[in-house]
């Protein structure tokens, strides 16, 4: 009888050691000095600048990539050309690639030694490039299944009734894919907000200019200010959790299966 509790106990222990205790420690440390200390850490000018940059860049990239992702998904689903399978595999590359390698490749191509003489290193554009790179798969793969399963009868019926392409788009296609697009935006956003490895090389981490939230947390940890690091971490955790919960609710409401 006792051994039946062994499995769950071991699982809970593993989870506690790796996830539960560490998260509790973050919360505890963030508020170790009470709300005052927490708020002081979060409202520090450099923290505010980093958080603002992170949120704005992530939102912008998520929105832009949702359109690019829709375009690419459309081409993948509705168009046919040789090498389509390779293109599809390439889209997934940012998933499998270590983020530091992603950062390195972007730095090589769009940094100081760029063969195109396009240097976005140490600038906010570099951050945008990096975030776009790592979030593109989310944007494509969130709408692609919906487009693929889309019943074209409604489209064709509308067209035969005299609707222009724009109207077909606006009133038939867009409403169907809107929930999936929103989910994709949310996922891309949540991913971008915490991104570190791909951004850290190309951004230069210039305080108040190109320092994202994760870089700021890292430098806090290096200067041993773990309380402030924990506080800003809590902010990031909350943002990600809120977005994830929203996406979960969206999925349940619109019955989107979890194919990203």
């Amino acid at each position: 009888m006792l051994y039946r509790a062994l499995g769950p106990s071991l699982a809970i222990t593993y989870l506690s050691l790796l996830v539960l205790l560490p998260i509790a420690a973050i919360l505890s440390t963030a508020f170790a000095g009470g709300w005052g200390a927490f708020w002081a850490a979060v409202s520090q000018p450099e923290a505010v600048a980093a958080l603002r940059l992170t949120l704005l860049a992530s939102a912008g990239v998520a929105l832009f990539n949702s359109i690019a992702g829709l375009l690419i998904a459309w081409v993948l689903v509705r168009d046919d050309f040789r090498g389509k399978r390779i293109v599809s595999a390439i889209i997934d590359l940012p998933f499998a690639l270590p983020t530091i390698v992603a950062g390195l490749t972007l730095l090589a191509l769009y940094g100081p030694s760029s063969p195109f003489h396009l240097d976005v290193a140490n600038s906010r554009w570099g951050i945008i490039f990096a975030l776009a790179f790592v979030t593109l798969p989310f944007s494509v793969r969130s709408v692609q299944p919906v487009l693929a399963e889309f019943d074209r009868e409604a489209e064709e019926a509308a067209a035969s009734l005299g609707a222009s392409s724009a109207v077909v788009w606006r009133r038939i296609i867009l409403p169907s894919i809107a929930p999936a697009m929103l989910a994709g935006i949310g996922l891309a956003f949540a991913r971008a907000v915490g991104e570190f490895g791909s951004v850290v090389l190309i951004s230069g981490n210039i305080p108040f200019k190109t320092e994202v939230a994760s870089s700021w947390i890292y430098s806090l940890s290096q200067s041993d200010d773990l309380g402030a690091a924990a506080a800003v971490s809590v902010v990031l955790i909350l943002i990600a959790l809120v977005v994830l919960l929203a996406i979960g609710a969206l999925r349940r409401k619109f019955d989107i299966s979890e194919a990203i």
Partner: protein
Amino acid sequence: MPLRIIALSYIGLLIALPVGFVFYKAFQHGFLAAWNSVTTPDALSALWLTLGVVVIAVTMDTIFGVGVSLILARHRFPGVWLLDAFVDLPLALSPVVVGISLILVYGRTGWFGNWLAAHGIEVIFSLPGIVMASATVALPYVVRSVLPVLQEIGTDQEQAAATLGASTFTVFRRITLPSIRRGLAYGVTLTTARVLGEFGAVLVVSGAILGKTQTMTLFIQSSIENLDPTGAFAGAVILILISIVVLALLGSEAKDERRTSRWRSRSHQSPSVTEMPLLSTT
């Protein structure tokens, strides 16, 4: 047609071109220069450390993943949804946050700091810390790949085997395990890719001590900082090659998945080829 061009150009500029360029930069000064830069003692120890961490962390997460999937699929107890949510938690965490959270528990000034020091166990700035950080960020993948399969196939066969006299272990080995084989392979591949590529959490937790606690990803970063671009790019090539192998494995799993996913995709919790690692920022 123009749509196709725009799409392909975007993909090309953003993804294909940069990766191809890495190969070019790695071998820019010849194959020998690249080879030399990744066979230095520091580079080799980074490679061995990475491989070691991958083996340990992936094994740990796989055992845990299968176990938790069985629990979540078979057992009904209050708070089961909570366990499910906690397993998914690492997906929402920035890797730097993961690293800091581990330091706060296992570091010298952490919750277990005194106890660990008294027993001479070094977690942070040492191998155990790196393994833990890697295992944490990749925690959900096996569960997310195996759990839907378990939920879908049900317990009929297992119960039948049990009534015929099979022991629990035999049931697991000969019925459960083969049936989750594909989902498990998928989950293990995702986990491996994730652990291989982990950077932020390991950077925070390891202290990146040259030759001792540097993984391949940290080696790449320090090579750039030490103005050794060839070393960085060559290291990146190694990781890219391993990533391509991982992608290829995923692809072959996907081909089998596509055949069965059509009838599965109607249900809510079916695994599909596109169920790629969410929020897997490293």
